[in-house]
């Protein structure tokens, strides 16, 4: 019998679900509301120089990679299950597309981080 890849993708879905449950709301609040509005945190929190410095050290790189990649794996995995709920038949191809998008996003993220 062919080995299922389900445990791999489910683990990544679960890891992304856990990470987004723990710090997702706070991250969205900081990067999407507080900093752009200069509310509680100065707008300069996400200045070009500070963000470059952040992703130039190993910890920052890892943090950015984990958030982007795991959020993508979580979101896209659940999204393709959603299609089923809406009555759209999820073929193996479509499933591969959704997981493929998460993998592509992860590769893009690693590539971008390597350029900084």
């Amino acid at each position, binding site marked *: 019998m062919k080995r299922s890849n389900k445990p791999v993708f489910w683990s990544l879905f679960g890891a992304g679900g856990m990470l987004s449950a723990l710090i997702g709301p706070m991250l*969205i609040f900081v990067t999407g*509301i507080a900093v752009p509005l200069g509310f509680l945190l*100065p707008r300069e929190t996400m200045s070009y120089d500070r963000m470059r410095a952040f*992703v130039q050290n190993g910890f920052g790189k890892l943090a950015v990679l984990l958030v982007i990649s795991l959020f*993508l794996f979580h979101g896209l*995995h659940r999204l393709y299950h959603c299609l089923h709920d809406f*009555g759209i038949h999820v073929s193996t191809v479509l499933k591969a597309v959704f997981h493929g998008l998460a993998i592509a996003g992860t590769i893009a993220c690693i590539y971008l981080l390597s350029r900084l």
Partner: protein
Amino acid sequence: MTAGSKQAAPGMKTYVRPIGSWWLRNSFYRWYMVRELTCVFITAYAVILLWGLMRLVQGRPAFDAWRENLASPSAIGFHLLALLLVTYHAWTWFKVMPKTLPFISIAGHRLSDRTIIALGVAGAIVASVLVFLAILLSILQAAP
């Protein structure tokens, strides 16, 4: 089940029962759908961050333009909605944790469902406060 396509012989047409707006039938289904749709916002948020990372690689003008976009009313509106929905996702995530985790026993006693949920919520609050403090400290350190 993603049946149909897997079981039917190639080229064979199977009857697919149309499904209407079943999620509107009762509030349990409606909230289930809200939870499932939180994934749209988590995905979109990851894409926004990835986009920002690309702009950061492209240089200062590109990154500043991205930050400018983040301050637009539509971006703020999106993030407010995302904040609400991802908070709901977090709550549902911890609420099902007693079912998704293996049994945990401490000194022969199984952790109760309530304890597991409470630990999850407390963990999220502590982690979020730590993230915020770390960002705040990095700003205060930079200031003379």
